[in-house]
């Protein structure tokens, strides 16, 4: 029977192993939470891209559902060296860094100051012992899994992850959460989990990086919850650099308090399938959120940005700007839904996305929308699914000044990404992302002129 386990049964079997392994050490409420997660996953399963399922209309997760990803409750973290990490991920000595290898906290690779002032950074496994009450108050309270199979599954396997608690007005050192996936003969699944709680009037800079060390297949099912306290500002970055055959499905839930700001920059490159479900709840009077997004897809890669912004309070402000560069037969999906509730008077929402499509076989599906139940608001949205013709005109223009196609393409792409990269306030990270983009440029050549030139008769 074991060889013919259905995919779901495999997850269930792994879940039972985890349950037994963690028996006793986990608090009762956590064990119950996991069981609820598993039960919900068993009911929901993985979503299907069927008609009517707007959430998953353009993204087919069958490759995830059909693969046999194995879970290891205690993966080896010893094979990974800091030098290898520094080559593939942003890295600064002065940052507080938590490294997770295949979902498991790796203390020897991490650097956490013993006294962080008002900043406490720890693995969730450890924090369950030290900060249980605060965790119980927030964990899984923002990232609901009732109607999301992936979040339910992540919750079922909730045993480790990152915990950040920030208080005090001092400027804390940036916190970097680095989730590393190693190559293994057997494709693995990991469940990165992050809980961030900032108290009132606190500033926090947070980087979440997901990176693959090899080019094998694996699956990251991640959930991040961020609570932004009244008057606080969280400058958040999500850097997704999964390997070409990897699957990445992540959910980010931010709840923003009164006069608080959640600003996030999402940079993504690589991954057979990368889905980011970002929900920002503007709960407090005068709260605001910002999203700047940039993704580069090549080959057969697929990226899906699913953004929801919920204006639930007066004077709340939101801003979204998502840009994509596509080549090969890659596919980018962007859904941006802004909800302005009744009572969210004087709110202001801006939303735009732009794409630079370098290949005729690449595809963009973009669906911005605004649902407004309040009269006294300002809302603008504009989508420009970049036409290949537009890029062609620009390349031609540059070439007419003497630039060869490579140089012209590079300059155009650099210009396109600059707008987003310039918003990265954390300078070492900006430099790192600049480098990643530069390195990717040869892959992002403009297709289409060579053939035309041949057409010229004589």
């Amino acid at each position, binding site marked *: 029977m074991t060889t013919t386990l259905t995919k779901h049964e495999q997850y269930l079997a792994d879940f039972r192993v985890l349950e037994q392994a963690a028996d006793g050490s986990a608090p009762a409420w956590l064990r119950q939470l996991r069981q609820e997660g598993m039960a919900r996953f068993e009911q929901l399963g993985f979503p299907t891209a069927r008609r009517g399922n707007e959430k998953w209309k353009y993204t087919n997760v069958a490759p995830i559902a059909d693969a046999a990803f194995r879970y290891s409750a205690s993966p080896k973290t010893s094979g990974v060296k800091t030098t290898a990490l520094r080559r593939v991920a942003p890295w600064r000595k002065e940052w507080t860094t938590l490294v997770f290898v295949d979902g498991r906290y790796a203390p020897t690779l991490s650097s956490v100051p013993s006294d962080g002032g008002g900043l406490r950074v720890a693995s969730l496994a450890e924090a369950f012992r030290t900060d249980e009450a605060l965790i119980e108050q927030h964990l899984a309270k923002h990232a609901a899994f009732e109607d999301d199979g992936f979040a339910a599954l992540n919750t079922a396997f909730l045993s480790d992850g990152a915990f950040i608690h920030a208080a005090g007005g001092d400027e804390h050192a940036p916190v970097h959460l680095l989730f590393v996936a190693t190559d293994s003969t057997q494709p693995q699944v990991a469940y990165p989990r992050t809980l961030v709680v900032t108290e009132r009037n606190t500033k926090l800079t947070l980087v979440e990086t997901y990176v693959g060390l090899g080019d094998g297949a694996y699956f990251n099912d991640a959930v991040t919850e961020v609570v932004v306290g009244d008057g606080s500002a969280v400058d958040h970055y999500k850097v997704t650099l999964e390997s070409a055959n990897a699957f990445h499905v992540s959910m980010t839930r931010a709840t923003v308090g009164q006069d608080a700001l959640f600003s996030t920059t999402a940079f993504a490159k690589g991954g057979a399938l990368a889905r980011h479900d970002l929900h920002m709840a503007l709960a407090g009077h005068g709260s605001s959120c910002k999203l700047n997004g940039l993704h580069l897809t090549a080959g057969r890669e697929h990226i899906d940005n699913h953004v929801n912004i919920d204006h639930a309070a007066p004077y709340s402000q939101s801003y979204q700007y998502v840009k994509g560069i596509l080549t090969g037969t890659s596919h980018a999906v962007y859904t941006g839904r802004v909800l302005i509730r009744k009572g969210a008077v004087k709110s202001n929402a801006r939303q735009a996305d732009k794409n630079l499509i370098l290949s005729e076989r690449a595809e963009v599906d973009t669906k911005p929308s605004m649902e407004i139940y309040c009269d006294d608001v300002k809302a603008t949205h504009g989508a420009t699914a970049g036409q290949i013709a537009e890029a062609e*005109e620009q390349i031609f223009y540059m070439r007419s000044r*003497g630039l060869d*196609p490579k140089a012209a393409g590079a*300059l155009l792409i650099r*210009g396109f990404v600059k707008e987003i990269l310039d918003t990265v306030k954390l300078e070492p990270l900006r430099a790192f992302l600049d480098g990643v983009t530069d390195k990717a440029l040869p892959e992002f050549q403009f297709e289409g002129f060579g053939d035309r030139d041949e057409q*010229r008769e004589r």
Partner: protein
Amino acid sequence: MAEPMLVIRDLHVKVADTEILKGLSLSIGKGEVHAIMGPNGSGKSTLVNVLAGKPEYVVTSGAITFEGKNVLPMTVDQRAREGIFLAFQYPVELPGVSAWQFMKTALDSIREQRGEEPMDYRVFDKMWRQKIKDVGIDQELVKRSVNEGFSGGEKKRSEMLQMMVLDPKLALMDETDSGLDIDALKSVADVVNKRRGPEKAVLVVTHYQRLLNYIVPDFVHILIDGRIVRSGGAGLALEVEEKGYDWVREAMATA
């Protein structure tokens, strides 16, 4: 006549399966300024675009040589590096691309073709500032992305700045005067006149005699329905302005 720089012989050009140029011949000598006038849709932009190497314009027969070299097999960027420059009727916007970077890269490509080293960036920067002054374009404007959000007139000035920096042998100007106020027009003319010299040539496409008061051409050609139907000196432009294109058409019919 001066030594020929550009020679076009019996040129036939198709766009999207429609023949636009139907046997056009024209010779431009070193040091000369030529003007082309003609009704809307007669093929003026087609001519300059085909010279610049725009891919959708397909040459079905005829020949183009530039300084004795066959232009037709050359790509658009090769032509630019040979010294052909087109100031576009509708320049495109390049978001996020700095004009400085763009022109430095372009100039270095052209220099590379001539076997020269890339220009020292301080030397370039000094020259860049000087040209900005010469063209009279707003400093702040040039700091923005190339042409992004520029007005029509600002785009034309930006084209002139690029022309000054790259210093081509042959400058093709497609209605650079359209949409310019009188001061801008004078400064464009100024730029062109300053560039006049024994090694340079200019081809201006215009609808208006007005520009030709400031840039006095050596030759004027009338382009109708894909052919040059009449050529003459600067006086021809005045005559056209006064009598219209029907006069040219009638003169053709009775000739």
